[in-house]
C-alpha cells in the first residue's frame, strides 16, 4: 500500500463511549446512532471499534446507493455471514418471517452481539421498519446496534422521520465532526503538505484529508475528485476496467463477480488494492470510501455505464436479487428487461412493505413499457394503488386515469372510476370526485347489484357526507349497506357503516356515535385494520365537534398504534391531528403544538392533514400572542378552501375569527365570520353555536335556526358563570375562562384572569385585565403565580394540594374535612384536576401527575389543621 492508512485522530472519546455502551448492552440492548458528513470517518470509526473488540460476535450490513435500494439489503448481508435462521428467512418474501428471524438471531447466544447497519441514508423502507422493530425490543436483547448515516440528507428523506423516532434511554447519538486544524496538522506532519491549506480545502473532512495526504506530495490534484480519478488513471487498462465494474456493482462486490463483469483476471484487482482505492478480503472487495465509488461512477461515459450495467445484469441472472437486477436493467437502458424486472421487483417490494421503492420501480417500468402492451395496465394498476398508499395523490390519479381509459369493459371501468373518485376526494379535487363517483354508480347500476356497486355507493355516500349533504349521504349509505350485507361483503359493509355513522353524527344526531362504535367493533372482529383506524378517526372527530376531547383521546391511542404498524400514513397523520386538537381543547397547549409540529415535519403530507395541523398551531399562537399565527392560519385556510367542505371551512373560519379578534383586527373578524356564515347551512349544531358566538362578538345580527348547545346559549344569554361551568364540565379550560371573561362581576373576572394566565393566554388575559380596570379594580395580577408556572398541567396551588390528596387515596369527603372546604367545592376542584391531567378517573391522578412532571407533595397538608 502506498502510504494510504486511515489514521483515526480525535475519535478516542467516541471509541470510549462505544466501548462503554457495549458493556451496558450486556444488561440491556443499546443503540448508537453515528452521524457525520460523507467522508467524516463514520465507517472508519466503526471499523476501529470492531477491531478493538475483535472477540465480540458481529453482524455487519451495508446499504448501497442503488437507483432503488434492495429491500432488507443490509440484513441480507448479515444472513450471508450467518448460518442461523436469518439466512433462510431473508430469502423468502415474508417480511414478518424476516423480522422474527432477526429477533431469533439476536436472541441466540453468544452475547453480546454488535449489529452494524452502515450508511442507512440509502436504506429501503423495510430496513428502516426492521430497525425500528428491533429498537423497540432493545430492552430484552443483549446487543449493541450501531447505525451510521450521513447528515446531508434531503429534508423529506424518510430517514429523518425514522431517526427522529429512535429515542429512549438506551439510545445514544454520536456525531463525527470534521477534523480540527490541529488534527490535520498532526496528520500532515512530515508529509511536506501545507496543513493550513489542506484544512481549509477539505473543511476537515477526514476522507478528503486522508485522500489528499495519500496523493504524491507536491502534485496535489485540483479537487479531491480529481485526486481519485487521478489515482485511477495510474491503473493499467484492465485494472481500470475492474475498478469501473466495481463502481457499477455498488460499494462492495464479490471478486468473482467483478472479474466476470470486467472481463479481467483476479490479479488485476490487486492493482486497485495497491493504490488504495479498494479494500477487501479473500472473497469480496469494497471501495475504501463511497465517495471514490461515486467519483469513478460519475466519470463513466454514458455508453460505458450502460455496457457495464448490461454485463452486471447478465452476470447476476438468474439468481440475483430482483431489485439489484432491476437496478442494472435500468442502468443498462434495456427496455424489455426493465419492464420485466422492474415490474417483478416492484411486486417484491410491495410484499416486503417497501412501498416507496415499489412506486419508483413501477414508474421505471412504465417509462419503458409499450403503450399498447397489456402489461401496461397491470403496471398502472400497481402504481396507482401504491402511490395512493404513500399519499402521492397526483401520481396515483395520473395512473388511475389511464387505467380507466384503458379498460374497455363497463364493470372494470366503473370500478376504477369509483376508486379514482375516492382518491380525488382525498386530494381535494372535489368536482372531479363528484363526476367520477356519479358516473361510476350510473355505469355499475346498469349492470345490476354487485359488490363493486356497493363500494361505489359507499364512496359516493362518503363524499356526500363530507360535503355536508347528510340526508343524501344517509340515503345512499343505507342502499350501499343493504347491498353489501346481502352480498356478504363485510369490508364494504364496515366502510359504509362508518360513513353512515359520521353522516348521522354530523346531522346532529348522537346515535351516529353508536353507529361509529359499532363500526369499530365490527372492523376489529373482522380484523379490517384500515377500517378500525378510519372509524376511530371519524368517532374522534365527531366527539371533538362536540368538544368531548377527553373521550376522543381515550379512543385514538390504539388506532394510532395500528396506523403506525401498518404504515397507514394518511390515517396516522389524521389521528395525530385529532390528538393535537383534543390536547388543545383540554388546555395542554405545549403537547398539542408538539404533535402538530410532528405532523408538519412529515414529508408529502396530504393537504387536509397539513391544514389541520396548521390550524392547531395557529390557534395556539394566536391565544398565546405569539408571532406567525396569521401565517399558519392563512396557509391552513388556503389548503382547506379547495375541498369546499363545510366541516373543514366553518371551524377554520371561526379559528381565524378568534385570532383576528384577539389581535384586535375588527375588519378581519367580520370578514372571517361572514366567511363562516356562507357555509353554515346544514352544519352540526356545535358549529352553528360557534358561528352564533362569533357573530355576536363581531356585532353581526344573525339568528340560528337550530337550538344551540348550552355552552353557547348561556354565553349568548349573558350568563357567563353558568356558561363557564358548562364548559368546565366538558374539560375545556380555555373556553371556560373565555366564557367567564364576559362576566361583569369582578370576582369572576379575577378567576378568569388567573385561569387565562395559567394557560399562557396573554391576549385574552389582557382584555380581562382591561375590563377589571374599567370596573375600577386595583392590584390586578400581572403574571402567573410562581406555583402555577412550575407545573406543566397548569394546576393552581389549590388544585395541586387536592391532587396530592386524591393521589394518596382520600375520598372527596375526607379531603373536604381536611381542608375545611365544602364537599361541593372539592368536587369542583377534583373534576378540574382530572380534566387538566386529562385522566378518566381519580385512580390515574398520581401516575398522570408523575408523567407530566408535576410534583405532588402531601406533606404540610397531611395532618389536621
Amino acid at each position, binding site marked *: 500500500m502506498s502510504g494510504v492508512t486511515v489514521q483515526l485522530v480525535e475519535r478516542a472519546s467516541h471509541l470510549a463511549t462505544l466501548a462503554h455502551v457495549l458493556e451496558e448492552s450486556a444488561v440491556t440492548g443499546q443503540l448508537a446512532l453515528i452521524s457525520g458528513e460523507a467522508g467524516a470517518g463514520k465507517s472508519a470509526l466503526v471499523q476501529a471499534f470492531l477491531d478493538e473488540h475483535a472477540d465480540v460476535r458481529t453482524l455487519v450490513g451495508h446499504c448501497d446507493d442503488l437507483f432503488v435500494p434492495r429491500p432488507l439489503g443490509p440484513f441480507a448481508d448479515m444472513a450471508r455471514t450467518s448460518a442461523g435462521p436469518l439466512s433462510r428467512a431473508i430469502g423468502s418474501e415474508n417480511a414478518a418471517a424476516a423480522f422474527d428471524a432477526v429477533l431469533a438471531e439476536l436472541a441466540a447466544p453468544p452475547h453480546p452481539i454488535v449489529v452494524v447497519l452502515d450508511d442507512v441514508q440509502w436504506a429501503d423502507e423495510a430496513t428502516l421498519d426492521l430497525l425500528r422493530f428491533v429498537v423497540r425490543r432493545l430492552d430484552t436483547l443483549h446487543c449493541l446496534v450501531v447505525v451510521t448515516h450521513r447528515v446531508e440528507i434531503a429534508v423529506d428523506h424518510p430517514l429523518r422521520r425514522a431517526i427522529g423516532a429512535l429515542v429512549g434511554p438506551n439510545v445514544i447519538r454520536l456525531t463525527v465532526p470534521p477534523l480540527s486544524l490541529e488534527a490535520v496538522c498532526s496528520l500532515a506532519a512530515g508529509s511536506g503538505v501545507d496543513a493550513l491549506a489542506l484544512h481549509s480545502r477539505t473543511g476537515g473532512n477526514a476522507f478528503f484529508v486522508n485522500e489528499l495526504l495519500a496523493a504524491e506530495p507536491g502534485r496535489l490534484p485540483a479537487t479531491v475528485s480529481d485526486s481519485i480519478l487521478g489515482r485511477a488513471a495510474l491503473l493499467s487498462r484492465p485494472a481500470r476496467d475492474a475498478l469501473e465494474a466495481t463502481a457499477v456493482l455498488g460499494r462492495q462486490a464479490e471478486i468473482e463477480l467483478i472479474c466476470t463483469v470486467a472481463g479481467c483476471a483476479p490479479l488485476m484487482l490487486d492493482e486497485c488494492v495497491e493504490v488504495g482505492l479498494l479494500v477487501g478480503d479473500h472473497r469480496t472487495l469494497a471501495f475504501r470510501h463511497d465517495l471514490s465509488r461515486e467519483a469513478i461512477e460519475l466519470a463513466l461515459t454514458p455508453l460505458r455505464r450502460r455496457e457495464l450495467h448490461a454485463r452486471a445484469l447478465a452476470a447476476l441472472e438468474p439468481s440475483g436479487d430482483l431489485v439489484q437486477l432491476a437496478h442494472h436493467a435500468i442502468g443498462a437502458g434495456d427496455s424489455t428487461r426493465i419492464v420485466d424486472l422492474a415490474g417483478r421487483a416492484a411486486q417484491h417490494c410491495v410484499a416486503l412493505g417497501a412501498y416507496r421503492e415499489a412506486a419508483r420501480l413501477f414508474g421505471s417500468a412504465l417509462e419503458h413499457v409499450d403503450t399498447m402492451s397489456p402489461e401496461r395496465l397491470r403496471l398502472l394498476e400497481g402504481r396507482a394503488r401504491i402511490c395512493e398508499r404513500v399519499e402521492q395523490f397526483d401520481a396515483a390519479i395520473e395512473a388511475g386515469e389511464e387505467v380507466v381509459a384503458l379498460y374497455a369493459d363497463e364493470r372494470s371501468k366503473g370500478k376504477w372510476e369509483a376508486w379514482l373518485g375516492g382518491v380525488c376526494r382525498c386530494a381535494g379535487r372535489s368536482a372531479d370526485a363528484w363526476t367520477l363517483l356519479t358516473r361510476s354508480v350510473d355505469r355499475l347500476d346498469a349492470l345490476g347489484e354487485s359488490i363493486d356497486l356497493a363500494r361505489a355507493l359507499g364512496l359516493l355516500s362518503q363524499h356526500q357526507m363530507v360535503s355536508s349533504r347528510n340526508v343524501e349521504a344517509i340515503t345512499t349509505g343505507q342502499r350501499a349497506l343493504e347491498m353489501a350485507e346481502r352480498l356478504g361483503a363485510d369490508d364494504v359493509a364496515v366502510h359504509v357503516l362508518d360513513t353512515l355513522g359520521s353522516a348521522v353524527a354530523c346531522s346532529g344526531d348522537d346515535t351516529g356515535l353508536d353507529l361509529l362504535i359499532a363500526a369499530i367493533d365490527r372492523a376489529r372482529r373482522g380484523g379490517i385494520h384500515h377500517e378500525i383506524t378510519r372509524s376511530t378517526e371519524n368517532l374522534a372527530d365527531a366527539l371533538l365537534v362536540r368538544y368531548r376531547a377527553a373521550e376522543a383521546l381515550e379512543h385514538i391511542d390504539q388506532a394510532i398504534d395500528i396506523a403506525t404498524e401498518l404504515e397507514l400514513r394518511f390515517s396516522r397523520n389524521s389521528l395525530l391531528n385529532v390528538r393535537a386538537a383534543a390536547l388543545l381543547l383540554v388546555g395542554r397547549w*405545549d403537547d398539542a*403544538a*408538539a404533535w402538530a*409540529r410532528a405532523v408538519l415535519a412529515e414529508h408529502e403530507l396530504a393537504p387536509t392533514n397539513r391544514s389541520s395541523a396548521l390550524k392547531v*398551531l395557529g390557534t*395556539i*399562537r394566536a391565544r*398565546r*400572542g*405569539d*408571532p*406567525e399565527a396569521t401565517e399558519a392560519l392563512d396557509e391552513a385556510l388556503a389548503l382547506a378552501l379547495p375541498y369546499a367542505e363545510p366541516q373543514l371551512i366553518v371551524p377554520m373560519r371561526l379559528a381565524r375569527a378568534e385570532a383576528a379578534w384577539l389581535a384586535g383586527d375588527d375588519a378581519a373578524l367580520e370578514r372571517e365570520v361572514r366567511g363562516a356564515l356562507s357555509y353554515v347551512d346544514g352544519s352540526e349544531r356545535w358549529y352553528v353555536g360557534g358561528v352564533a358566538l362569533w357573530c355576536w362578538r363581531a356585532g353581526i345580527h344573525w339568528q340560528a335556526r337550530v337550538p344551540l348547545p348550552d355552552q353557547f346559549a348561556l354565553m349568548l344569554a349573558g350568563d357567563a358563570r353558568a356558561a363557564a361551568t358548562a364548559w368546565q364540565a366538558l374539560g375545556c379550560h380555555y373556553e371556560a375562562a373565555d366564557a367567564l371573561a364576559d362576566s361583569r362581576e369582578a370576582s369572576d373576572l379575577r378567576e378568569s384572569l388567573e385561569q387565562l394566565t395559567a394557560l399562557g393566554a*396573554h391576549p385574552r388575559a389582557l382584555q380581562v385585565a382591561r375590563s377589571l380596570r374599567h370596573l375600577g379594580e386595583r392590584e390586578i395580577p400581572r*403574571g402567573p403565580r410562581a406555583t402555577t*408556572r412550575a407545573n*406543566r398541567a397548569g394546576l393552581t396551588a389549590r388544585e395541586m394540594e387536592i391532587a396530592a390528596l386524591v393521589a394518596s387515596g382520600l375520598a372527596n369527603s375526607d379531603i373536604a374535612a381536611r381542608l375545611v372546604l365544602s364537599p361541593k367545592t372539592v368536587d369542583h376542584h377534583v373534576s378540574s384536576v382530572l380534566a387538566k391531567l386529562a385522566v378518566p378517573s381519580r385512580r390515574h391522578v398520581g401516575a398522570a401527575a408523575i408523567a407530566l412532571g408535576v410534583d405532588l407533595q402531601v406533606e404540610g397538608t397531611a395532618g389536621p389543621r
Partner: protein
Amino acid sequence: MPRYLVRRTFSDGLAFPTDASGREAVEGIVRANLDQRVTWVHSYVSDDDTTTWCIYDAPSPESIRSAAGTTGLPVDEIHRVGVLDPFFYAAPASK
C-alpha cells in the same frame, strides 16, 4: 431561520456571575437550546436585572417555548423581528 425577540421577567433578579458557575449556567442553556435548534444570539438586560430582551434565531415560536420549558426560563412575549441598521442608510463618505 427567523429571528425572534423574547422578553423575560425575573422578579428575583437575574445573575450570571462571570466565573465557572456562570459559564456552566450559560452552557447549560446553550445546550438545551441546541436540542430545539434554537440559537441564543445575545440579550439586553435591564439595569435592575429583572427584565431581559433576548435575540434568538429559531425555527418557530414553539421551539423557543420548548427550550424555555427545559431551561426553566420565563417567557413573557415573543416577537418576530428583522434588523434595521442605520449604517445601511449612511451616505457614502465624500472625498
